[in-house]
């Protein structure tokens, strides 16, 4: 009798323990603080009142990000310039590959980027047709890397079959040809992985007779697959999603703009570029002096480049973005803020002459 009663008691005690301990999971861990809610206006025009934090990649000031798209789009690396005995101009570049860096690629999102000169994209290499380009490449990464340039060069300078191991060095040398907007990237297998992590950059070969003066911008259309499912989670012009939407690029009416657009997106076969409020003349790979069309849409497959020339007639805020709206809603959306300009602005732009 005694034992039955005791065992019954045991059951009650056990039950009590189980029910009390289950409360730990059942009762939500949130204690809503008595705070006055703040009101936020989102970019979609909807209003949200919250006592919590706002997670909006657009509303971010961008200061804490490791990469400055405003700086990058106007930065050209002309190399260390010297003149050879035969009068040829030699441009020497130093590029270091790394694969251990973590970068804030979108507000709050940290991703292991593989970099050329600590940047994704790598520096925009710029030379003039006929220059001798010499690139001192060092691999400080833990994996083999290489530099593969598009353009005309010898097979052994192609950077495909000779991958450079950890700590290795290699000097790539070729003449800058042909004129155009080219690309360089790591060509070590698996290439998709090396590119998706950030090992790419633009390579511009200017014609000997300089192009018309213009304000020039580089837009590298890229993306990041942060969860490794072979689909991009983020898209952008110049790495940071939504950046130029929140920080419009300021230009003037009647100002000639030249945009160097490179599509280095992985995982998606096609990317595109749509400009609002005006149309552009475009030069595929920038190799021809005659534009191949006058349009507001460009369709670009992986590795495609286009030089765009345009100006704005009317002031205001104009978008440019992927017309593949999935990409634009994941970050590849930008804007120009066009200001009224009565001067002939084009002549004010400095153009870097050789040397």
């Amino acid at each position, binding site marked *: 009798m005694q034992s039955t009663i005791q065992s019954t008691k045991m059951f009650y005690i056990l039950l009590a323990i189980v029910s009390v301990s289950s409360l730990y999971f059942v009762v939500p*861990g949130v204690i809503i603080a008595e705070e006055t809610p703040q009101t936020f206006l989102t970019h979609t025009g*909807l209003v949200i009142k919250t006592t919590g934090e706002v997670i909006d*990649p657009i509303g971010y000031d961008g200061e804490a990000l490791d990469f400055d798209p405003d700086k990058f789009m106007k930065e050209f690396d002309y190399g260390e310039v010297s003149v050879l005995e035969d009068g040829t101009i030699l441009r020497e570049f130093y590029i270091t590959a790394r694969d251990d860096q973590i970068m804030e690629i979108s507000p709050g999102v940290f991703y292991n980027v593989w970099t050329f000169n600590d940047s994704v994209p790598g520096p925009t290499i710029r030379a003039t047709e006929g220059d001798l380009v010499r690139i001192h490449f060092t691999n400080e990464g833990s994996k083999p890397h290489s530099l593969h340039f598009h353009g005309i060069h010898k097979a052994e300078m192609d950077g495909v079959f000779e991958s450079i191991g950890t700590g290795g060095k290699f000097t790539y040398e070729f003449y800058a040809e042909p004129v155009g907007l080219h690309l360089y990237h790591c060509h070590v297998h698996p290439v998709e992985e090396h590119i998706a992590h950030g090992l790419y950059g633009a390579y511009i070969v200017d014609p000997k007779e300089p192009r018309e003066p213009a304000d020039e911008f580089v837009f590298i259309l890229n993306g990041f697959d942060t969860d490794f499912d072979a689909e991009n989670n983020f898209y952008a012009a110049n790495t940071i999603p939504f950046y130029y939407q929140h920080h419009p690029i300021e230009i003037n009416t009647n100002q000639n703009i030249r945009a160097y657009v490179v599509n280095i997106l992985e995982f998606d076969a096609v990317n595109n570029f749509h400009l609002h409020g005006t149309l552009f003349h475009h030069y595929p790979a920038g190799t021809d002096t005659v534009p191949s069309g006058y349009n507001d849409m460009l369709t670009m497959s992986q590795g495609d480049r286009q030089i765009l020339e345009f100006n704005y007639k009317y002031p205001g805020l104009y978008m440019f973005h992927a017309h593949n709206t999935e990409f634009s*809603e994941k970050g590849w959306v930008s804007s120009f803020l066009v200001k009224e300009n009565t001067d002939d602005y084009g002549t004010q732009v400095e153009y870097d002459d050789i040397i």
Partner: protein
Amino acid sequence: MTSSKPVLAISAIAPIVLLAIMIAFLLGPASTFLQFGVVLPEVSIEKIEFIENEIQATVRNTGPIDVDVVLADVNDRIQPAAIEPDTSLKRFETALVRIPFDWNEGQPYEIGVTISDGTRFAKGIDAAFHALEPNMDLFVFLGMIGFLIGVVPIMIGLLWYPFIKKLGKNTFNFFLAFTMGLLVFLGIDAVLEATEISENHLSSIFNGELLIATVVILSFLALYGIGKQLTKKTEFSKLSQGLAMSLMIAIGIGFHNLGEGLAVGAAIALGEVALSTFLIIGFATHNTTEGLAIAAPLTKSKAKIFKMIGLGLIAGVPAIFGCWIGGFSFSPLFTLIFLAIGAGAIFQVVLSIFQYMKEKSEILSNTSLFAGVSVGLIVMYLTSVII
């Protein structure tokens, strides 16, 4: 004897102390030595609600490490959002993600959140549906649903009482066995339903299946203890033994109906089912058999009408409470626990009925037992198909 008590206490406590020291060692000095492998974060979206121009997702950190929720998306398209109380989620902590969004009724949506390492976690909703306002109307509505699926069918089932009372011994045994069949089916049904909730709503960190097993067994043992006490008190009057049996059945079914009510209430609130009159009819038909199960053991005693109504209420009213709790604050864990308690209780009742039958009849007719259980199971299966 008293001198050995401290020794006894020490021998009981010593292993616990040693275990504590070992855990302290593993967490402290040995922690760096033991770090290997990759620790993956995990976030579960437990609930998605659609209100005026806004989608609200309740997210819980169900992984082994703290996380920061930094982005929200709708259908894999990044959307600005707010997160309350803040972006940082410790283990087991929940937060409310509020996404301003002009959603469309009846359309499927997938809601996702991205954490600071870029990993995205998502949950789909088959059809967006305006979240029910927690007001008096909903209270009455949910109460009505609980009443219709719980109380009314059981009361109807109890009306079989006069019919069963007039049956011969073998036929009566058949009906008791029939009740066992019904209950076994209900028990299995509850375990399956709990498993389904565990799979769909509960993060793997809770070990849903093991929790179900644990609660079923604990509930079985607890009810066994209570049942023993209850029958002991009725030992003097053989007549009320049937009543005790019915009470046990009613309690078991009550737990079951609480769990069922929680599931139905939650399904209504989450908009996961289109609640049609057809569904109510299905539940009602199914649950009528529960009334029969309560009535059967009573036939050998002089049960009074109010006692029977009382038993019916014990079994049925929990469905109303279940609907309220499930409808106003759905907790998958809570629902799972109650379904499991119900299952354990029901299995215990099956055992009690079996023992009762053995006691009552010197020679237990196998035919009526097997036929009863089989028919019970089949009837339950057929009524379940209607739902």
